[in-house]
C-alpha cells in the first residue's frame, strides 16, 4: 500500500514537472483576431491592423447596435514588434490563432514581403493555413474597415468568397510558402478589391458606400515583390495552364455569326512541351477540356453535329486568342514565370535548367509560345435549338 502511494505521488509530481507552458486563459480574456492587415509606412516600419471580435456585440448585431468587431492598428519593425505594440491598446490578450485572412496592402507588396513571412511558420500559435490576399489599390487597413452585411465578420466573408469561387486552388499561407520556395514557378496571391457598393446598373438611387470583391491574381517575382496583376479572367487562364482549373463557365461569341454560346467546362487539362533549339526555348501548350452547353443564344440547332463543330471551332479560336494574350502579358509585361514553364524545362532538360535557372525570367520572356486549345462539347442540354424560335428561324 505504501509502495503504491509512493508511486502515485511520483506520478503526480511528474505531472506537474512535465507540463509545458502554463497557458490557461479564459476565452473572455482573449482578443480574438479574425483578420490581419499588413502595410508599410514611409519610414519602412510595418503597420499591422487587426480586426478583433467584440463578443458582447456579436449577439446584438441583429438589433443594429454595434458591428461586432473593432479595428486596431499598431506599428513596429516586425510582426512580433507590432503585436507587442498592439497589445498596449488592448485590454485582452492578443490571440492570433483564429486569423481567417491576412491582407497585404499594395504598397507593402510592391516593396517585397519576404521580411514578414518567417514568423508565421515559426510560431506554433499562428495558423499556417490562413488565407493570404493582396489588396489592390489600397492599404490593408482600408479593407479591414469595410463593413460586410452577410457575414458576422468581414474577414470571414473574404475567406468564404475565395472558397466559393476559386475551386480547387487554395492560397493559404502554406501554399504561398511552397510557391515561393520552389523553382521554376513564381508565387501568386489572390486579390481583393474595394469597390463601390452601388448595384451595377443602378447608379443613382443608392448611397455610395464600400464593399469588396475577389479580383484576379497578384504576381510576385522570386524576390517576393509584387510586379503586377492578372484580371479575374486571366487568372482562370493561368489556372488552366497550371492544371488546376476544375469547372468553369465559359462563354464565347460565334465566329462569323451573331449570338453567343455558354458552356460549363470540365476536365480541363494542359500539357506544356518545352523544345530547346539553338539555345532558345520554345513551348507548345496543348489545352483540352470538355463542356456541356448551358446557354445557346444563337439560332443553331445543336442536334446537328456540324453545328456543334462550329461551336467547338469558335471556342477553340477565341480561347486560344485569349490565352495567347494572357501569356504574352505575363511574358513581356511582367517577365515573371507564374505558369510553371520553368518546371517543365526542369523536368525535361534538367542539365540545361541548371545553367538557365539564374536568368530564367529573361529566357522565359524571350520564349516562343504556341497554344492549341481543344474543347470538346459532350452534351447539349435538353433541347436542340432555343425553344422560343420559330421553325423558320432555326438554322439546321
Amino acid at each position, binding site marked *: 500500500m505504501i509502495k503504491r502511494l509512493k508511486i502515485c505521488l511520483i506520478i503526480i509530481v511528474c505531472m506537474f514537472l512535465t507540463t509545458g507552458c502554463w497557458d490557461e486563459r479564459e476565452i*473572455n480574456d482573449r482578443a480574438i483576431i*479574425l483578420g490581419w492587415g499588413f502595410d508599410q509606412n514611409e519610414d519602412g516600419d510595418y503597420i499591422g491592423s487587426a480586426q478583433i471580435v467584440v463578443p458582447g456585440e456579436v449577439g446584438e448585431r441583429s438589433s443594429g447596435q454595434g458591428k461586432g468587431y473593432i479595428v486596431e492598428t499598431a506599428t513596429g519593425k516586425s510582426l512580433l514588434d507590432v503585436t507587442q505594440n498592439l497589445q498596449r491598446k488592448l485590454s485582452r490578450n492578443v490571440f492570433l490563432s483564429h486569423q481567417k485572412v491576412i491582407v497585404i496592402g499594395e504598397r507593402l507588396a510592391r516593396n517585397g514581403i519576404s521580411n514578414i513571412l518567417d514568423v508565421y511558420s515559426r510560431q506554433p500559435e499562428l495558423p499556417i493555413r490562413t488565407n493570404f490576399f493582396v489588396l489592390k489599390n489600397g492599404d490593408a487597413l482600408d479593407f479591414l474597415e469595410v463593413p460586410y452585411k452577410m457575414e458576422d465578420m468581414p474577414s470571414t466573408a473574404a475567406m468564404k468568397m475565395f472558397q466559393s469561387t476559386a475551386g480547387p486552388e487554395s492560397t493559404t499561407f502554406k501554399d504561398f510558402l511552397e510557391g515561393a520556395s520552389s523553382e521554376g514557378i513564381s508565387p501568386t496571391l489572390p486579390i481583393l478589391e474595394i469597390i463601390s457598393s452601388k448595384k451595377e446598373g443602378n447608379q443613382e438611387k443608392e448611397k455610395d458606400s464600400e464593399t469588396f470583391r475577389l479580383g484576379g491574381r497578384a504576381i510576385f517575382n522570386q524576390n517576393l515583390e509584387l510586379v503586377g496583376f492578372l484580371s479575374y479572367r486571366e487568372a482562370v487562364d493561368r489556372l488552366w495552364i497550371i492544371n488546376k482549373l476544375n469547372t468553369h463557365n465559359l462563354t464565347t461569341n460565334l465566329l462569323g455569326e451573331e449570338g453567343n454560346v455558354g458552356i460549363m467546362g470540365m476536365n480541363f487539362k494542359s500539357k506544356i512541351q518545352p523544345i530547346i533549339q539553338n539555345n532558345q526555348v520554345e513551348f507548345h501548350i496543348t489545352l483540352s477540356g470538355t463542356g456541356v452547353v448551358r446557354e445557346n443564344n444563337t439560332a443553331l440547332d445543336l442536334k446537328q453535329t456540324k453545328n456543334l463543330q462550329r461551336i467547338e471551332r469558335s471556342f477553340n479560336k477565341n480561347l486560344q486568342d485569349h490565352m495567347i494574350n494572357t501569356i504574352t502579358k505575363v511574358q513581356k509585361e511582367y517577365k515573371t514565370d507564374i505558369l510553371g514553364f520553368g518546371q517543365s524545362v526542369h523536368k525535361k532538360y534538367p542539365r540545361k535548367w541548371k545553367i538557365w535557372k539564374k536568368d530564367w525570367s529573361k529566357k522565359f520572356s524571350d520564349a516562343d509560345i504556341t497554344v492549341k486549345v481543344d474543347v470538346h462539347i459532350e452534351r447539349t442540354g435538353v433541347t436542340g435549338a432555343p425553344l422560343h424560335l420559330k421553325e423558320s428561324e432555326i438554322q439546321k
Partner: protein
Amino acid sequence: MKLLLNLRKIKKFKLSEMIDSFSSEEPDQSIKSDLSANERFLQDIFQQCSDVVFRVVPINDKTKLLFVYIDGLCDTKPLDEMVLNLGRASEKKCEVFIFEEFVANQLRAVAQIKSIKNVNELINGILTANVAVLVEGETTALLADLKGFEKRSIEEPSSEPVIRGPRDGFTETLRVNTSLIRRRIRSPRLKIESFTIGKLSKTDVAVVYIEKVANDSVIEEVRKRLESIEIDGVIETGYIEEFVEDFPFSPFPQVQNTERPDIVCGSLLEGKVSIFVDNTPSVLIVPMTFWSGLQAAEDYYERFIYVTFIRWIRYILFNISLLLPSIYVAVTTYHTQLIPTNLLISIAAAREDVPFPVLLEAFMMELMFEALREAGIRLPKTIGSAVSIVGALVIGEAAVQAGIISAPMVIVVAATGIASFAVPRYNFGTAYRLLRFPMLILAGLFGLYGVILGTIAILIHLVHLQSFGVPYLSPIAPQNPKYLKDVLVRAPRWSMHRRPIRVAGQDKTRIPEGQRTKT
C-alpha cells in the same frame, strides 16, 4: 438440576449473548420430559420477546401440548384444525398410545415436520418461522414448517424497466426468488447452495449456478469468500458485495446486481454465479466485466442489428458522460485554437457576462446537477416534481439570463447528464459520475494534457482490475477476437456458439453450429 444451574449462570448475560451461546456454543442441551420446565426454560430465553407465543393446549387430563411460535411468521390455521381433530380423537378412544407419534402424524398432514431433541435446534427452529410442538412427558419436540408471513407480490422492478421482455422481478423472499430461477431453468444441474451468514441476523444466502456451465474455480472462490464472512447481520446484498469484491477501493463495481430473474438466468447460462440474499430483491452476479455493465437485458430480446447500433451509441455516450465537461473546460481555457471560429465567437459572446472562470462554472453546474439528481431520488413523489421545476427554472433559465452561468455550459452539463442516463446499469454509471470530478480538476489544471493523463490512469486501472479471476476488460484486453461477438456487436443468437471463455466451465458450447435458417 444441572439445567437449572446452567440457567442461572446464563441469566447473568444479556439476552442476545444468551441466544448466541445457545445457538452455537453449547450444543449438548437436550429437551426435558417435564413440559412446564421446558416452558419456563423457553420463556426465560424469549424474555421480553412479545411476539413469541406460548400456547398450552390441554388435550385431556393427562396430556398437554405446548405450541411455541413467533406471531406473524407462522400460519396457525392448520394448527387450530389439528388441535380440534386431536381433541376429538382423544375423546373417542382413551386408549394408551404413543401420543407423540399421533401428533406427528397429524402434523405431517399439514406441514413438513422435523423431530428434534436439542434445545438449540428448537430455538433456531422457532426463530426461522417454525412452530415448535412440545408434548408432556416427551424428550423430543416437533418443528412444523408452517411459514406464513406477509410478502410482497411479484412486480416489475421499477429500477429496471424493459419494453420487451418478462416483467417479473425478485421480491424480498429468498424462496420466491429461487423459484423464479427454477421456473426458467428446469434442470437438476441448476444448483442452489445455502449458506447462513450473520451472527444475529442468520440470513439465508444462496449461491446459484449451473453445474459444469459455471467454472468450478469461480464457484469455489465464491464459497470460500462467503464462508469467511463474519458479520452481525446481512440486510442487503450490498453487505455481501463489499466482502466478496476483489478491489474494494475501485470506483468500478466488480459485482453486478439486478432485480430481474431473466438477467440472472441469462448470466447463469453464460456460466456466471449468482448470490441471493434473503430479504432483498437485488441479486449479485459474479464475475462482472466492464462490458456487461453496458449491456441491458433487452439487448438479447431485440433484433441484433438495432442492438449493435444501440450498443455503439451507449459506448459513445458513456465516454461523453465522463469526458465532455472536462474537454469543454480544457478546450476553452487552454486550446482555444481547436474550436471552430464561429463556435468560439458564440461561446465568447455567451460567456461575456459570466463572472466565474470556466472551471468553477463547470464545477458549480455539475454540483447542481448531482444535487438535483440526489434530491429527486428520495423525495416523495408528490414533491418530486417541484425539484425538476425549480431545477429547470433556476438553473436552466434564470442563471443563464442573469448571466451567472453561460448557456453553452448548461448545454454541456445537460448533455453529460443525458449521456450518463444512457448507461443501462445504474451502479456502473456511478463510477464515471464520480470520476468526472477529478477529470474536471485535471482539465482545469493541465488542459487536454490532464484529460489524457486522467484517461490513461483510468485505463491502467481498468486493465488491472479483476473480478473473480476474470480480467475486467476481457475480451478486449486481454484480447480474444472470438468473443468480441457480444461486445463490439451483438451477433445473432445462432452465431454465438460458445460461452465467454474465461467464465465458463467444461460445458462450453451453448448453441450447436449450423442453425441459421436456410433460405
